[in-house]
């Protein structure tokens, strides 16, 4: 017995010692995937930089394995030619938000360049005020070789506007995305109502051309038991608590509690638009008929996915060019994107678009940057045409080629697992959104070639469609100043809650439209600036 005890105690002591030694080793290594840069191996060691960002979440294509991807070799050469030697500190993406918030709030242990996308504008501007983040404009003026300016002034002029803070300074660089068709036309994609094409064909139902026909079609699909399981369980998945499902736009409504009408350059609110009452009457009908699945209101993506897999979703709001839903349906299926449907006389149905120009993510230079010239050189390298090509398209002949019209198209339209095996991937999957901003010159041609014809046709029809609202309103709004931010925060918290609750209750018929004026009066009371 005593011998047993001794053995156990010795084993525990050994583990304790091993733990301590392991901890010591890690402290000396500081190894948060902190990897010495591959760049500047030729001896141009003047541009040492520490970069902190989230690791990519791709399960197969990993930054750790970058050496095996030719595209990394090319990007590394660009960085090396710029004389940069980079140390990467990549934190698992699921953990990054907490790590960066804590580190920035403490103001210690900061790198030279940091991905601060997890921080909201208020926090970033506060950090800038405290001097934790540097103003980039004078640094660009002083050290840039012109690449940054070219990208921000010529290629993506809207990016400058949406990243300049109210004090006229610029505290972060961004991901920049532009999608064109035939080399010049801006190419938005739409978020629209999708309907089961195979069920319409099976039941010999025409594609609905109006909102009323849409309702009758959903009813018919359910009544005729399109999925053949003996139950009337074919449903519409739609969240009426917000206005970002495409049905709201059929009634001419904006996509959020305050939305940007890009064409008329106005900010609108669906609550004050003409079609709002008809919209709720329509939703009430959908609920009354049992078509809209009310159990999914406010549900998680996983719950919605469950319905999809169970082969019960007749219609839902999603991207018109999506191809990721169909493989998840048990037994298979096809979704047809609908054009905006006419719902009310006198109101032209609007489309909901993802803007062809996107600005997102934030990459900043911190007060601890010892070599700001090198930091600017890094961004000059990023905002170059070569890098943009490597990032989005990869290497010509290996990952992409030119089609007959000269547009880039990917060669290997394979799964990530297969791409990882053959080591052929564009840079975006390998290092995009980590510490490397995404600069993307996308085109519609490739997307059209990789979706069924009926989806491509819908996209071509939507290209010039008007009127429209956008799904990313923030892209069109300036950064508010301190006072505006404070006001906005104060108002929006209560107003958004009220709006969400009211919209849900109106749609479910739990509140009557007869008391409309009272609801609006309450909303105006909450929005004390109006």
């Amino acid at each position, binding site marked *: 017995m005593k011998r047993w005890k001794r053995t156990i105690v010795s084993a525990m002591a050994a583990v304790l010692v091993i733990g301590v030694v392991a901890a010591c080793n890690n402290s000396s290594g500081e190894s948060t995937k902190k990897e010495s840069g591959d760049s500047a191996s030729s001896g141009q060691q003047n541009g040492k930089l520490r970069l902190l960002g989230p690791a990519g979440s791709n399960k197969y294509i990993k930054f750790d394995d970058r050496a095996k991807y030719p595209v990394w070799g090319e990007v590394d050469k660009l960085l090396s030619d710029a004389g940069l030697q980079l140390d990467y500190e990549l934190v698992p993406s699921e953990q990054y938000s907490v790590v960066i918030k804590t580190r920035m709030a403490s103001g210690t242990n900061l790198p030279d360049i940091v991905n601060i996308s997890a921080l909201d504008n208020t926090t970033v501007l506060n950090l800038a005020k405290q001097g934790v983040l540097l103003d980039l404009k004078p640094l660009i003026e002083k050290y840039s070789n012109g690449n940054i300016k070219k990208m921000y002034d010529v290629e993506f002029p809207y990016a400058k506007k949406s990243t300049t803070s109210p004090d006229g300074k610029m505290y972060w660089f961004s991901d920049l995305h532009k999608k064109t068709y035939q080399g010049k036309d801006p190419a938005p994609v739409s978020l629209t109502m999708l309907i089961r094409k195979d069920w319409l064909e099976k039941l010999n139902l025409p594609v609905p051309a109006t909102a009323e026909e849409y309702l009758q079609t959903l009813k018919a699909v359910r009544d005729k038991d399109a999925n053949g399981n003996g139950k009337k369980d074919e449903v519409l998945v739609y969240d009426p608590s917000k206005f970002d499902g495409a049905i709201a736009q059929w009634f001419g409504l904006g996509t959020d509690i305050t939305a940007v009408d890009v064409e008329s350059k106005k900010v609108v609110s669906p609550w004050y638009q003409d079609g709002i009452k008809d919209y709720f009457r329509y939703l009430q009908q959908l609920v009354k008929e049992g078509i809209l699945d009310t159990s999914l209101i406010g549900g998680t993506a*996983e719950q919605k996915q469950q319905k999809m897999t169970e082969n019960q979703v007749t219609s839902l709001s999603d991207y018109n060019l999506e191809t*990721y839903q169909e493989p998840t349906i048990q037994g298979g299926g096809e979704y047809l994107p609908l054009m905006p449907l006419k719902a009310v006389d006198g109101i032209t149905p609007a489309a909901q678009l993802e803007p062809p120009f996107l600005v997102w993510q934030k990459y900043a230079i911190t007060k601890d940057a010892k070599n700001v010239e090198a930091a600017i050189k890094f961004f000059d390298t990023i905002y170059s045409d070569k890098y943009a090509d490597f990032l989005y398209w990869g290497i010509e002949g290996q990952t992409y080629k030119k089609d007959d019209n000269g547009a880039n198209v990917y060669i290997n339209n394979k799964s990530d697992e297969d791409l990882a095996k053959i080591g052929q991937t564009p840079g975006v999957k390998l290092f995009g959104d980590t510490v490397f901003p995404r600069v993307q010159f996308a085109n519609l041609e490739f997307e059209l070639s990789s979706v069924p014809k009926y989806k491509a046709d819908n996209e071509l029809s939507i290209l010039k469609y008007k009127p429209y609202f956008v799904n990313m309103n923030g892209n069109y709004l300036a950064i508010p100043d301190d006072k505006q931010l404070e006001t906005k925060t104060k108002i929006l918290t209560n107003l958004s809650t009220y709006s969400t609750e009211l919209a849900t209750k109106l749609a479910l018929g739990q509140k009557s439209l007869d008391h409309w004026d009272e609801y609006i009066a309450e909303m105006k009371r909450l929005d004390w600036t109006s």
Partner: protein
Amino acid sequence: MASVRRNPNKIKQGSVAVDIILYAIALVICLITLYPFYFVVIMSISSPSEVAAMNVFWYPKGLFFDSYELIIRDSKMWWAYSNTLIYVVAGTILNCFTAVLGAYPLTVRNLKGRKWVIAFLLIPMYFGGGLIPSYLLVNKLGMYNTMFAVIIPGMVSIWNIILVRTFFTTIPDGLKESAFIDGASHWQLLFKVILPISKPILAVIAIYSIVGIWNSWFDALVYLPNEKLHPLQMYLYRVVVQQSVDLKMLSLEDTKNAVANMLSNIQLKYAIIVFTTLPVIFTYPFFQKYFIKGALLGSLKE
């Protein structure tokens, strides 16, 4: 002969009816408690499409063990497992050590300011320093991104000290006095007299620490950006977070990846839950009596 009046409504002790009712209630409670575990296990071995469709309730559908294979093959999981073992063993030993050393002086009657020290110890039980000050402290001490960041801040538990102290005060004074009469010092008294008869309380603290450390992930989330130092629960946390992405906030391209991630994780998370919980579940029956003892000790007042 006087007859004994019997109350027909009285439920007799040892009545079969009562036994049946009590057993039925106990059975229902057992089922309610055990079903979630059973549910997770059958989900973890059912086909991913059946899991995504939530068709699994009573038995596994379409046996599927690939998730376990994936986990077993994942070197990150084994890293996390070994890290957790290190955190648990080191944390438990240190917790027992500090609890004993912290508790003993507080039982010495003629120690000056003993009551003040006890009052002082109670303060951090109710008030914490906050996340940022804690982060600054860990960082300044050079423990950020090392195993120490998880082990050291958690090595002293005031609750454990109070438990041990309560236990020590139940030891008869005569025993201590006789040890002193025999010429023992405080160290000798503690390690040669008191500790050998304090195994129950050490077992209580050990099991509290093991379970607590095994299930903890927040310290790792804040202080350990290096995934090679992550404990097992962080591994699970990451899988769950990957799945709770708001798809509406993503562009078309990013949505494709997020949906793929979400789908592959729906079933995987159940397998990981089984894998991460089993060791602790197996530990419970062996330490159950100590848990009860721990609860009783906590309820005692001086």
